[in-house]
């Protein structure tokens, strides 16, 4: 089963069209293995992207270098998945 330990979901705020395009450049870099949960659309619309641990630093440096704001929406995807599984199994046991 795929493990997502260390994966984070970043919520990116692209302030203008140029920043949206910059984020779209990220989308094309296959080696980063980014998973866009909400893709880049228009300025002001939140962009959510799951970033595998090995790519985290590069992505954050890229965003900061281009002055693109972001917050960490999910600190550790696997932790949330574990919670979800526990909840399902607990109720099933019940």
């Amino acid at each position, binding site marked *: *089963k*795929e493990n*997502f330990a260390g994966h984070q*979901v970043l*919520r990116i705020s692209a302030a203008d069209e140029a920043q949206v395009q910059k984020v779209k450049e990220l989308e094309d870099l*296959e080696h980063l293995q980014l*998973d*866009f*949960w*909400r*893709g*880049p*659309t*228009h300025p002001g*619309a939140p962009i*959510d992207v*799951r970033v595998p641990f090995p790519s985290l630093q590069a992505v954050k440096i890229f965003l900061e270098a281009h002055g693109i704001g972001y917050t960490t*929406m*999910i600190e550790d*995807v696997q932790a*949330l*998945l574990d*919670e*979800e599984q526990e*909840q*399902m199994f607990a*109720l*099933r046991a019940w």
Partner: protein
Amino acid sequence: ARSSDTFNYATYHTLEEIYGFLDLLVAEHPQLVSKLQIGSSYEGRPIYVLKFSTGGSNRPAIWIDTGIHSREWVTQASGVWFAKKITQDYGQDPTLTAILDSLDIFLEIVTNPDGFAFTHSKNRMWRKTRSLTEGSSCVGVDPNRNWDAGFGLPGASSNPCSETYHGKFANSEVEVKSIVDFVKNHGNIKAFISIHSYSQLLMYPYGYTEEAAPDRDELDQVAKSAVTALTSLYGTKFEYGSIIKTIYQASGTTVDWTYSQGIKYSFTFELRDTGRYGFLLPASQIVPTAQETWLALRIIMEHTLNHPY
């Protein structure tokens, strides 16, 4: 669960549990509910649709589907809740009773069974189908880019490794083709609602072109009323509009195809995440999400009933 009354709607379920629920509901309401198999998935799983009907033959109908993107778990869970709600409210809720006295409702809860099974067994983040693409090591096609409406235009990817890969040709995915064949054979579907998550949107055609749909004004009005009803319950904010204007250009989408087939009331929902969970919406939000969405669905279904075409 021994009955649909003891089934737990406030937790996520496996494919087997959901398929078991379908049989429970049919057994409890044989006069109202039947289960149709419209095909088999790429990996051979049955594709089931619940039919809610109070009689008649080939009545005008409403189609609702959930789970076409397998990781959007709150949608399949909401579909289960809708199914139970319909059986509870027929004969109780005057609006739903009027709808079902004239229209049939088709509800496909697990529209991408292979992908859904995969999210439970191997990869919770899986979105696409599980079909193999010759010449590529990447698996799956985005079933919401595979329809014959603007297929292959900008707004989908030709790269089999992309999450929005449109597939080698329109309707290449049996999960899509099964619905296409059903809709064409039925020939009397008047509303088609495909439910996704997340980002709290209610959208109508088009996704592949900036051109306004001929019925844009009416669709916009219905969407506005539906969103108002949805927000009235828990204050969940929704935006509405055409796909291309509300999010981005998306080609080969479900509702662009259904609209092209003359099904005027074609809508796509993107259900909540009001917080910061994305696809990992806590199970505690399943029922509130389904409840608020139901209010919007009732508006669309009532409008369809009152505006025959």
